[in-house]
């Protein structure tokens, strides 16, 4: 295991503490990156047993990787926590309710078809007015916290969510500059189909031929982040297969968590002789949509948008992929648009994959700080490149009776290029 060597890279300086959302919340060392590394060391040295008490401190980690950015010693906390979570899943038996809830999440979210099957009943529920009534009466608060959290997170739905599908091939407008494959995502595909539509339109206008391979499944990001390694590897192999042999210059992704996972396939499958080389080759071609567009450079004419936009850094874009300038560049190229920074923007919003589903109390505590900062900016629109973050911030703002209008940066660029309308403000809890 490379873990031991990686553990030794930590010199205990503590520079990670203020970057860690749980340490900022509670001020408790075992719920900080430095403390968790201490625990990993104690486990490796046999000074502590791997028991449920230790696991609580690994579970509390959001996996936001803010610490990876903050660390002067270059500690690979991302690898360390992933290896630890895999070991926890192999060796620790969780309480029954916890196991059932986690199984339910993994039976649902990584499966776009199942997610879509849920849309019709949810749509009827929200159109019937019962949803609004339930929100007004605070009935979601009566559900067990984890279920209430899920219900409250739901974005506004429409017919597009039921039937969204993308053309298998979209030709480039004008001379072709690249041929790219698009990873459609799971939550993105079903709940935010507009983001994929916008991505295809923008890429085409910027000279990309866009291929959306049929039958592509989940990338396995949620599974990797939860330590479900075998499941993640299965999904990775399937996804790699569906993008091979298509003559693609790049594999493009617009969801933060998916992107960082796709870029790590090489490591995920490193021990599988049949797949290691294929996975590494795949990962090398993966680009966040902002990264690809920054490399290509703009060609399509931008129309002015008189809009102030607060920029939210998704952790898995900024920290895990190190992309900060590129997503902003999508917006700063738009005439008339005023880009505003969210204070303490390097802090996580608490969504963190499935964290806000399994530990809503902690996630909300962290999310409330983010909402304070977002609202302090007073922008017309929030640009957020990850569906989870958008849902989390909107949900918590909604509880305050504030409707946050949010869009993926690529949707904003789409509006400037093609005059499409931007998503409106969602309904609020009151």
């Amino acid at each position, binding site marked *: 295991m490379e873990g031991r060597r990686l553990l*030794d*890279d*930590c*010199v*205990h*300086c*503590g*520079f990670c*503490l*203020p970057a860690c959302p749980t340490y900022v919340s*509670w*001020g*408790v*060392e*075992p719920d*900080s990156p*430095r*403390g968790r590394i*201490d*625990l990993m060391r*104690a486990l490796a*040295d046999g*000074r*502590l047993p791997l028991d449920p*008490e*230790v696991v609580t*401190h690994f579970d509390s980690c959001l996996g936001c990787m803010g610490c990876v950015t903050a*660390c*002067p*010693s*270059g*500690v690979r906390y991302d690898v360390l926590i992933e290896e630890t979570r895999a070991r926890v899943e192999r060796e620790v038996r969780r309480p029954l309710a916890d196991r059932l809830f986690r199984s339910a999440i993994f039976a649902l979210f990584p499966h776009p078809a199942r997610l879509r099957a849920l849309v019709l009943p949810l749509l009827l529920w929200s159109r019937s007015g019962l949803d609004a009534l339930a929100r007004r009466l605070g009935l979601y608060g009566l559900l067990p916290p984890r279920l209430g959290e899920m219900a409250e997170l739901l974005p506004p739905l429409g017919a597009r969510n039921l039937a969204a599908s993308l053309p298998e091939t979209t030709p480039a407008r004008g001379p072709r500059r690249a041929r790219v494959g698009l990873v459609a995502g799971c939550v993105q595909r079903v709940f935010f189909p507009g983001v994929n539509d916008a991505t295809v339109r923008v890429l085409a206008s910027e000279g990309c031929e866009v291929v959306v391979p049929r039958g592509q499944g989940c990338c396995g990001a949620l599974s990797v982040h939860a330590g479900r390694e075998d499941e993640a590897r299965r999904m990775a192999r399937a996804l790699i297969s569906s993008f091979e042999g298509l003559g693609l210059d790049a594999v493009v992704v617009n969801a933060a968590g998916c992107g960082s996972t796709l870029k790590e396939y090489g490591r995920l499958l490193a021990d599988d002789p049949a797949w290691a080389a294929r996975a590494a080759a795949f990962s090398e071609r993966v680009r966040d949509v902002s990264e690809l567009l920054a490399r290509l450079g703009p060609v399509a004419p931008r129309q002015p948008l008189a809009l102030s936009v607060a920029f939210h850094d998704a952790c898995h874009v900024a920290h895990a992929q190190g992309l900060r300038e590129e997503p902003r560049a999508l917006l700063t190229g738009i005439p008339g648009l005023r880009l505003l920074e969210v204070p303490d923007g390097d802090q996580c919003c608490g969504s963190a994959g499935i964290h806000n589903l399994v530990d809503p109390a902690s996630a909300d505590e962290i999310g409330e700080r983010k909402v304070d900062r977002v609202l302090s900016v007073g922008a017309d629109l929030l640009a957020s490149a990850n569906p989870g973050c958008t849902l989390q911030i909107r949900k918590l703002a909604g509880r305050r009776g504030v409707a946050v209008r949010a869009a993926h940066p690529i949707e904003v660029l789409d509006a400037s290029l093609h005059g499409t309308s931007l998503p409106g403000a969602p309904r609020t809890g009151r």
Partner: protein
Amino acid sequence: MDPGLVARFAAIVGARNCLAEPPALVTYECDGLTSMRARPGVVVLPASTGEVAAVVRLAREAGVAIVPRGAGTGLSGGALPVAGCVVVGLARMRRILEADLANGWARVEAGVANLDVSKHLAAAGAYYAPDPSSQRVCTIGGNVAENSGGAHCLKYGFTVNHVLGARVVLADGSVVDLGGPVADPAGFDLLAAFVGSEGTLGIVTEVVLRVLRKPEATRTLFATFPSCAEAGETVSAIIASGIVPAAIEMMDTLAIAAARAATGLDWPEVGAALLVDVDGTVGEAGHTAARAGEIARGSGALEVRWPRDEAERQLMWKGRKSAFAAVGRISPSYLVQDGVIPRSEIARALGEVARLAREAGLRVANVFHAGDGNLHPLVLYDARVPGEERKAEELAGEILRMCVRLGGSITGEHGVGADKVVYMGEMFSEDDLATMDLVRSAFDPERLFNPGKVLPAPRLCGERPWPSRVRPVEAADPAGPA
């Protein structure tokens, strides 16, 4: 620790803020000095001065040692627990209570991070001057305990020059205010005794800080040299010319390499480099920076660079401030030492350091506050090689002895802590130490606050004075050595 006692601590601070499970305790076994470890009996995280006082009263009643802790970034083991003790963490007391900029002060809780004070005041154009390299993390309470320094203490002074008052919890659990917003109060300066007392006199819970107006302009220059000798001469020449730089930081080849690796700065491979800040009004800063650049060239600089913009200036300082931790990128383990020499002896002292390192067969990186003569030799070693940690500690000790021989000190700003207790006898006579112990017992007669730090424990008969290394803590760890 006895569960009944834990329950009583929990009743004071709340169950969530009272940690007694083995996993939580493991993470408090050491601070920034990782070579010494001990497991506390309980960790409490109070939210108010009242809770701190109640914790102290209970600890005293139970006869349990009390070890205060801020963010645990200290490099001398000041927050190293005593096995079975109660660690009082101030991490939850992080409110900025009030600021009176007209009169130049701010009152903050002890757990506030140093940089957060300046961030809070930034919009009003004010800041808190002392800037330890760990300022993003380290707490004001910890700064007071260690009398912390930082790069800009050359011009502005150490923590002691910026603390106007403090609220402290004494050994009997009483709460007193020492000093206050009014400058230079009458009577004995008991506050000064607390600054740098390393948690041995009581627990500071609130601090009244002096805050300054941000200088109108700061200019930074980065100069490279063939060796530390020319860089050392430049430091003396700049100060001799009448310039009082805000900071003069020196880095040698290894430290430059570490900072480069951590930040991606395009710093060249040279023998030494200086990072100099001058500040003042726009005209003054520009004039002084130009003059300092000329002096550097005249003293043998290979190159003098000016940051292109504020972003590059910030990155240069980030490189300097993360240099300690960044050394982790070029060596599996290292010891940070902290000694002082007269500024005029820099070249000679670094020559000595290099000679001692050669003899020990180890590498030493140097990154330090050159204007203060405050050396930070980083002794690089590999803990996995048997005997190398020991060799590194001996080399670090030799470097400190050399500092004392040259007329300096065994610590500039990191404190004595547990790490350097054994060298106190190199600097002070037995009478000196006995006098310090009298001051300590006046505040804490039962010596419950941070025992084993700063002052050597009373010797057993037959023992050599100040034996080579006191490490009682590992043996006392119930789980065995780390």
